[in-house]
Structures are given as C-alpha cells and as structure tokens.
C-alpha cells in the first residue's frame, strides 16, 4: 500500500516545494513593489515639505526683516494647513544663530545651531536643503528637522522647521493596515526612524541594515524572530530606507500544513482517489491472476489425468492378459464340472473334488478383481491427497503388483535396493504411482529382449532419491534432449502418446522435486527422481 502511495507522496512534496518556491518568489517580488512604491510616496511627502519651505523662504515678505515674525506666524499657519506635520518654523543666520522662531517651544536663551551636524551639512557648497534623522529634542518628542538655505547678496539665511513624523507614522500604519506586512523607516545605521509599535520603537536599533547599493532590492532581516524575507528602498531626499517585511511567519519548505487549505484538500482528495483506483485495479488484477492460476491448475490437472488414462491404454494390453488368464482358468474349471455331469462323455476315474474346483474358480475371480481394482485406483480422478507414504510400499505396488507379471513375462529381473534410512515422504500416492508406472513401463518397453531393472532409493539430506535403471536400448543425445517434451515418443505410432514423461516431469516439479535422466545408446537409461520429504508451500495439482 505504502508502495502505491510513495510516488504520489514524492510528487506531492515536489509540487509543494515548487509551489513554496514560487510563492516565496512572488512574495519577494510583491514586497519589493510595495517598498519601491511606498518609498516614492515618502519621497514625495518629504519633497513637498521641502518645497513648502522653499516657498516660504522665497516669499518676498521673508526678506522684510521688520515684518518677519508676523510673516513667519502666517507662514506657519499656512504650512500647517498644507500639512500638520509642521511643528514650528525658525530662521537661522549664517552664523547658526536662531534669528526668528515661531512654534510651541520657548527657548530660554539664544539658540545657536553652529555645531549641529545638519547645519554644517547645509552650509556645505551646493546644498540647498537638508533633512535630519529623527531626534527627541527639547520636548522629548521624536521629530526631525528639515531646512532650506538661500544665499542672497553674500548673506546666508536658513529656514528650518521641525516636523512631526506622525504623518509618516500614519502612512506606515495604513501600509500595515491589512496586516500583511511590517513596514519601518530606518536610517543608514539601521536605527528605527519611524516605526509602528508592532515592529519596534523609534530610535532603537532595528534588525534591518539595508545595503547602500543597489538603491532597492530584497534583503534578509538579521537574526531573531523577525528573520525573514524583506525588501528595502532608499529614499532620495534623506538617507533613510523604507523596509517592508512579510508579516506572516515564513513557512517551512516542506510543511504540508503550510499549504493553503484548498490545495491541501484537493491533494488529499486526489491521493484518496488515486489510492482507491490503484487498490481497485490491483484487486482486479489479483483476482484475474488467481482465476488464471486456477484455470491453469485445472488444465494441468486434466492433463495429468489424460496422461494417466493414456498410460492405462498402454497398460491395457498387459491387463487383458492378466484378466484373460484367470478367466480361462474359470472357464476350464467350470467346463470340468459341466463335463462330469455330461452323460455323453466317459465317466471320471475318480469323483471330481468339487471343493477344490470351486476354490480354484473363486481364487481366479478374485485375481481378476484385484487387477481391476488396481487399475481403477490408478485411473480414478481422485482429489490430490498429501499424506505420509513409505516409498518402499509404493514401489512394491508398482513393480510387484501392477506391473509384476508383465515384468515376469517380459523376462525382466527386478533388483530392488531400498535404503533402510529412507523416511516416509509427504506426497500424493496416486500421482507418484503414476510417475513410477510410467518409468517402469518405459523401462519394460526399452528391454524388449529382457534385462534387468534396478530400483534404488537413497537418502540425501532433505530429499529422497529414487533411481530407476534399465539395461535396455538407451537413448541418443537428440532423444535425451526432447525426452521430457510433450508428445515426444520413441515408440511406434499408436503405441505411445508422448505424454507420460512430460506429465511425470510436471508432477514431480509440482511436488517441489526434480527429475532427470542419464542415458547412452545400448547402455540403458537411469531416471532419477528427487523428492522432498516435506513440500513447503508447493501446490500439487
């Protein structure tokens, strides 16, 4: 059963792994697309804010120093209308001093940004704007600063604004809304800048450390429970990267249960149907095979029986003699008694001994009965019956009983050398007798001018050997080759069927034994039967 399912199972696992690989591939691609698109959105957001500041700093009113404070106030209010991310506005001079400020913070003294790294960066040649990393600042609230710079008439002025990352936070939260992905913004050092509480805390170090190049692509989070497929995309305005990670735990490559339920069900159903079909088909085949075997056994049984009947035909001539002799005795004895009652014939010199004559008649009748009984026992299509039999008794039956007088009248001396150590064998008496009758009958035919028939039994391990040796005409190598073939006969047409030896061979094979012959022309033949003492699992027909 397992054997039937194993290939299916392997196929299933193969497809499963394939499926997972493709699913992972598509998930990765999906993550990358999300990262890229959302990075663009973030870029747009930040650029928009920069443009907002640009508009303020480029406003002609900005240069009016006297009205700048009120201008800033108005500008901040306008900016907050555009985006409530703006927290405050401040004008910084080229020396880093905060010149004007609008916002929630009240600075106790003069503020100088001279030493701030963003300010230094911004003063660098070619820079017009800067965006800082997130910091906590005076209000202990995470925010970041964006600033734009203008140089007019050799004088540098900077407009800076603190921005709340709330917008980006909301944006990330909406991105995570479906629960499919985790998203976070990290800086170049891998520190969380904007992050939802699900993923981590701002300004804590993150498991994400995206490479600087290429600007976007897949990556793996470093270690921990967060390990898994990620995608990143660097923002263009600021050295931040948007990292997106698959929120679902990565499934083991061969976990069947990780499969979508539908596919799992379909697979199981497929397995069940295939299994059912295989089982049904196998059962059908087995039934057919059994039927064929039974049929073959029937045929084989019929062949054995046919061969037996054929050998009865060959035996018949001998049997007729066997029966006609006692019949002639009966006829003569009866005739004698009739004669003694016949007045036309001369009187007997002495009174006929009635008892003696009747005894002779009686004996002759039973001689006939014994012959017919033996013949019938031989022909009867009896069920195969495996029983313990002494080989000596069966051999004695054949050479002494059934073929005894034929051997005698054919001038064949029978020499029996039975191994006293031979044990009883488990066999079917009728079939074994059929084989032996066949072999002895062949031996008789081979010794037309008389001879010696030697029957020897020998004990050899778990087998019993029976050797039947004649001193007859022997066989040529060509005849030997075909001797066990059906319908091969050396006898004159009509004398032999050519079935005897082939059927004998199959009978002995069915017993789990073996049969072979050694023969040379003019030197007689020796047939050897190897019979197992016990048949293990062999089926006799």
């Amino acid at each position, binding site marked *: 059963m397992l054997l039937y399912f194993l290939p299916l199972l392997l196929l299933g696992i193969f497809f499963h792994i394939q499926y997972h690989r493709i699913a992972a591939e598509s998930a990765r691609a999906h993550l990358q697309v999300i990262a890229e698109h959302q990075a663009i959105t973030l870029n747009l957001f930040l650029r928009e804010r920069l443009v907002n500041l640009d508009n303020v700093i480029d406003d002609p009113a900005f240069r009016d120093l006297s009205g700048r404070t009120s201008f800033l106030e108005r500008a901040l209010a306008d900016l907050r209308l555009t985006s409530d991310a703006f927290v405050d506005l401040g004008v910084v001079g080229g020396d880093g001093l905060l010149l004007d400020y609008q916002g929630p913070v009240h600075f106790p003294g003069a503020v100088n940004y001279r030493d701030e790294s963003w300010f230094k960066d911004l003063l660098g040649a070619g820079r017009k704007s800067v965006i800082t990393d997130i910091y906590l600042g005076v209000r202990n609230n995470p925010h970041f600063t964006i600033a734009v710079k203008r140089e007019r008439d050799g004088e540098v002025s900077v407009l800076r604004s603190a921005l709340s990352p709330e917008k980006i936070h909301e944006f990330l939260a909406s991105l995570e809304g479906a629960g499919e992905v985790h998203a976070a913004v990290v800086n170049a050092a891998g520190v969380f800048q904007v992050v939802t509480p699900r993923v981590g805390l701002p300004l804590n170090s993150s498991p994400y450390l995206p490479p600087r190049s290429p600007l976007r692509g897949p990556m793996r989070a470093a270690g921990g429970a967060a390990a898994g497929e990620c995608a990143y995309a660097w923002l263009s305005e600021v050295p931040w990267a948007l990292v997106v990670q698959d929120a679902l735990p990565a499934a083991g490559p061969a976990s069947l249960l990780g499969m979508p339920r539908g596919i799992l069900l379909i697979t199981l159903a497929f397995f069940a149907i295939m299994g059912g079909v295989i089982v049904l088909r196998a059962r059908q085949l087995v039934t057919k095979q059994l039927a064929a075997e039974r049929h073959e056994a029937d045929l084989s049984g019929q062949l054995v029986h046919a061969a037996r009947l054929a050998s009865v035909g060959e035996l018949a001539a*001998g049997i007729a003699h066997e029966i006609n*002799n006692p019949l002639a005795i009966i006829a003569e004895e009866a005739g004698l008694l009739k004669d003694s009652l016949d007045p036309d014939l001369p009187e007997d010199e002495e009174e006929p001994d009635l008892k003696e004559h009747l005894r002779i008649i009686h004996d002759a009748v039973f001689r006939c009965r014994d012959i017919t009984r033996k013949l019938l026992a031989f022909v009867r299509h009896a069920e195969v019956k495996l029983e313990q039999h002494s080989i000596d008794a069966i051999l004695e039956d054949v050479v002494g009983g059934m073929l005894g007088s034929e051997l005698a009248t054919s001038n064949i001396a029978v020499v029996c050398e039975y191994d006293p150590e031979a044990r009883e064998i488990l066999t079917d008496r009728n079939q074994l007798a059929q084989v032996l009758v066949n072999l002895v009958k062949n031996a008789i035919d081979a010794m037309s001018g008389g001879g010696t028939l030697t029957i020897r039994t020998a004990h050899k391990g778990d087998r019993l050997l029976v050797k039947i040796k004649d001193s007859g005409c022997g066989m040529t190598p060509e005849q030997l080759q075909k001797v066990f073939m059906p319908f091969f006969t050396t006898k004159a047409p009509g004398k032999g069927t050519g079935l005897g030896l082939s059927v004998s061979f199959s009978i002995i094979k069915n017993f789990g034994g073996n049969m072979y012959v050694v023969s040379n022309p003019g030197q007689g033949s020796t047939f050897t039967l190897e019979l197992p003492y016990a048949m293990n699992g062999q089926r006799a027909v």
Partner: protein
Amino acid sequence: MEHVIKLLIVDDETQFLEAIAKRLRKRGLEVHTAASGAEAIEIAGREQFDIALLDLKMPGMDGSQVLKELKQRHKHLEAVILTGHGSLESAVELTKLGAFGYLPKPYELEKLVDTLKAAYEVRLKKKFAADERKLKEIMRLGTSESAIGILRRLKELDDEER
C-alpha cells in the same frame, strides 16, 4: 482306423494346464503338458506330437520362441496359439512363423477342439503327402538300389521330416 490326436499343451498357469488336459483327455485326445517353453522342447524331443498348444506370454521362453524352436525341430508338428494377450499384429506374426491357428483366452472348448481337429487334418495330409513321396521314392529306387539302400533313403526322408 481311429487316430488319436497327440497333443502337447504349454502354459505357465498350472491350474489351467491340469483342467484343460483333463477335459481334452475326456474327449479322446492324448494330452501331455509342459509348464514352460524349455520343458516343452525337452518333451517334444523325446516324443512325437501331432499338435502343440502354446501360451504366448510366459516367463523365460515366450510362446513365439517356443514355436520357432519346435517348428525347426519337428517339421510336421502343427501349432495352435492360445493366449490372453491378443492382437492382430501378433496373429499375423505367428502365422508367418508357421502357427496353424490362434485362439484368444478364454475360448469355447468346442471351438478349440474343432481347431485342433482341423490342425490334425492338415498334419495328416502333410503326413500322407510325405508317405506318398516315400512310396514314390521307393518305386523310383526299386530297381536300381539294394534293399539296404532303400531303407537308408527312407531313413533320410524321415530325418528330413523331423
């Protein structure tokens, strides 16, 4: 003159041999028995028989061998085969060997007696023919040979017959 048929029966079944001998004797035949081929040849060497009644299947020498032997030694002896083992081929074979008739066992005694009588007639005819030949030989030799010469010649003819 009433001739008595002198018969030798050869069969290995002694009960059968005794019974048939008795019955044929009752019918006026002179019957001798032999239980084997060798014995038959030995008896036939001692006495002259008209007919041999032979069984075919016997241990030792079988019927056809005995038939051959007897026919070789006794030219005018007729043989009838009596056997339980009968087939047309063996009948033809035996006729070629010189058997007069062939009866399968068991048989009707009357038929056997008829066969024996017929065989005896053939035997007589052959004997008459032989006697006639002797007579003619005597006539032929009558003037040219002495009495001793004629007797010697007749002895020769007798020997030829055997």
